[in-house]
């Protein structure tokens, strides 16, 4: 028995995610509400800009005497033009005023630190499903069921749209000619990424995003015309066949691509029993007979059965459709779903 990561590719998965707000804020949905990644589920507080006023220099006093001349307290809100500090001068008083509406947050070293008033930023990006728990000011938990692929990576922003299959085979390279006006508003599922020209065409036709098996490593640092999710990784690996077949089944249905850490969750929500419990990609143990996906080498993306597991040599023999391959156990993922 050896421990490996899970590869989740399931047509009937149940998922549950605790979604903490990314900072102090408020949750605006309630238990029982149906939510999608595009919906605003809460707001977080964004604090204002910081400004420093050297009051001691302005009043021509030593920094240690700042407190004697201040007219505001720490944390006090002030309007633009309101007096912060004042000292009697020879002919007329020397005054220091707030440049904008703000709060005087801290005093020290002769300085007054000001902070603009806070604003609220909306929070989106939960998994599609039903809200089952709300922790006021902290976050929420959402549960749902649907088809799910734990993909390797997402380049660009999160996206959603109906699935449009353009690759006749999972190893087929995505080309410009595969993309036409029917891709408008869709999530294009291709095989292997090779040329950015195909992505440019997808962008021109208004595609929401592209799902591929793999793509060149240089794309990771490039400004892509449309966001791209990779099921396998970088290089020339075809999309793993179970993932390809699942997307084929989902054609026309909405698929959400969401970034989670370095991974990407591809979810097509639908009512179901939730036969597979998905918890974000766990560790699992494999033994002989386990169905695994290969995650490295020339067989990346291939799915097969473990026929021999040799913990001593840290190698596994995998029976693929047409061959037996021997690979490091560390390069196997237990196929779940």
């Amino acid at each position, binding site marked *: *028995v*050896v*421990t*490996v*990561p899970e590869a989740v590719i399931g047509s009937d998965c149940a998922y549950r995610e*605790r979604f903490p707000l990314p900072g*102090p804020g408020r949750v605006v949905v309630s238990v029982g509400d149906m939510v999608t990644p595009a919906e605003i589920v809460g707001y977080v507080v964004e*604090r204002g*800009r*910081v*400004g*420093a*006023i*050297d009051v001691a*220099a302005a009043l021509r006093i030593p*920094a240690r005497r700042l407190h004697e001349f201040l007219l505001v307290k*720490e944390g006090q809100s002030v309007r633009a033009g309101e007096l912060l500090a004042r000292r009697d001068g020879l002919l007329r008083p020397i005054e220091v005023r707030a440049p904008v509406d703000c709060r005087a*947050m*801290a*005093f*020290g*070293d*002769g*300085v007054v*630190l000001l*902070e603009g008033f806070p604003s609220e930023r909306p929070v989106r990006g939960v998994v599609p499903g039903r809200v089952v728990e709300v922790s006021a000011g902290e976050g929420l938990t959402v549960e749902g069921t649907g088809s799910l692929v734990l993909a*390797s*990576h997402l380049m660009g922003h999160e996206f959603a749209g109906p699935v449009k299959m353009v690759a006749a085979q999972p190893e087929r390279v995505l080309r410009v000619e595969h993309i036409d006006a029917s891709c408008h508003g869709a999530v294009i599922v291709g095989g292997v990424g090779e040329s950015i020209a195909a992505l440019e065409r997808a962008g021109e036709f208004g595609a929401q995003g592209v799902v591929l098996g793999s793509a*060149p*490593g*240089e794309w*990771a*640092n490039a400004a892509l015309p449309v966001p791209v999710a990779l099921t396998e*990784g*970088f*290089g020339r690996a075809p999309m793993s066949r179970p993932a390809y077949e699942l997307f084929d089944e989902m054609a026309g249905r909405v698929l959400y691509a969401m970034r*989670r*850490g*370095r*991974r990407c969750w591809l979810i097509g929500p639908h009512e179901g029993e939730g036969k597979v419990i998905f918890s*974000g*990609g*766990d*560790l699992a143990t494999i033994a002989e007979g386990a169905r695994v996906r290969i*995650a*490295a*080498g*020339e*067989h990346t993306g291939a799915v097969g059965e473990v026929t021999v597991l040799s*913990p001593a040599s*840290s190698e596994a023999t995998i029976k693929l459709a047409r061959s037996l391959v021997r*690979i*490091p156990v*560390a*390069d196997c993922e237990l196929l779940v779903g």
Partner: protein
Amino acid sequence: VSEEPESMCALDVGSACVKAVLLDRVGDSHRFVARGAAPQVAAVSPFKALSAGLLAALGDLEDNSGRRLRGTDDLPITPEQLGWGVDATAGTVSTGCLEVALASVADDAAGRCAEAALHSVPSHLALKITGREMRAHRDAFERFAEELRNHPPHVVILVGGYDRKPERAVVAGADALATAAALIRPQERPLLVYAGPQAFRPQVAAIVGERMAVHMVDNVAPDERHANPGPLAAELDALCLTAVGRDTPGMGLVHRWCGSAMSTVSRALMRVYNYPGVDVLAAEIGADYTVLARPAQAKALVQAGAGLGQGARALLDESGPRAIARWLPEGLDEKDVADWAMNKSLRPWLVAANPAERALELAFARECLAKAWRSARQAWSDDGRPQPTALPKADMLVIGGGLLARARSAADAATLLLDGLQPYGVCRIAYDTAGLGPALGSLVDVNPAAVRSVLEQDAIAVLGTVVAPAGQGKVGRGCLHVELAMPEGQSLVLDLEAGGITRVPLALGAKARAVIRPARPFDVGAGPGQTLEISLEGGSLGIIIDVRGRPLPDPESLPDRIATLQRWSAALQVPG
């Protein structure tokens, strides 16, 4: 009866894998018994607990050793009872890094020393401000205060001024930092580490104490001539273990397992390779970063963004694909370099599945070592200024890491060491065949004799002795005349031409007397063109005479480069 622990379990909680090793007494000495390992999925999946990998690795170790180590509460069974559990546990943690802001009163030696100290721990210098910027109270200070508020680091370091001639500017700096810290929510406020003049400690504590916890350490620059980064480095090392990953799910269990014998990788290497009278330079190539440790000089360096997992992408971005592709054989190019680095950042636990991936891994590893040494040249200099010409020279070089534990041959390890670090002079070379270095380092305080026994018997393989003159010459021109008196009595005379590498078999434990006469401008440690008489020790590869030149030549044209690499590999008999 010895009171020292007999059976021990050491963990190595990394950012790609978690490893657990079991050591126990076997006959008269302590030996490595078994290991367990598991991928660290928490490295790529948010909210996954570190404990998942830890428990999986322990489960694997239990399977492999046939010994139960955990109680029903998942905590260690200690001490050993009737063959269950172990007498002691320890471990290293290398996930995450210390986020640091540095306030330096002047742009002087103190700031450079503080940065050198930062280099000795896994850290990220997120913010930096000088005394002048603080005193100006303008844009730079506003940005500093806002960033400090938006992304509070773990630690703020305040340095500046000498002990003999303290300047009050450091007190004003403390006041400015306290003011900026007031913007941070109390529960998020960082710790202030003050490493300035001792005379101002009371004032700094009084000014800052209400807003931040303060730790005092010895001045990093006590006077104009001396640097003293050690105490600050030690403090940062301790903080790494308490502050980093404080809120990471599962870290509590890691702490419970490692107990008081928890260590950073750099500290562990400093302990395990601390051989009195021997200047060892040890390198450990990890997933996130590469560590160099030189215990004899009390110097360690953690090179962030230089690893074979998550660190591969940063390495590629900083060094560029050319620096890595220069080590690749025919058929691989810069595109493969980018693909490999990206895939390793997504699944850092992957193992090379074929010769092409092994070549890519070794190419990245060479650049990891080279980058780390470039940083060490600066961080380890006495005054914080870079030493442009220094090449690594030590009595013994040891490299380790997951890659070395999977090395297919001793020649692979030697190639990596010689190409990556480019040592010069005469030094012994070795590698950690079992990836045990960090785990053993965490156990040094628990049972030093056991650690030494395991290290020497089960971990370190001595490759041999390298003779590598500094300098460069035209390929084919005479470079080195070597006379060897071999242990069996025969003598060997070698006239070597620049540009090559030669191996002379000499068994482990055997010694050969050598007279080495370099041609000018080559230098084997006695000075350019100066003769060196020395005893050379053997190893699995014997004596390696590396006259390729320092720094190593890097042919521009692809065919030349590939032919050169093939020639070098053949000389060391690296498997193709």
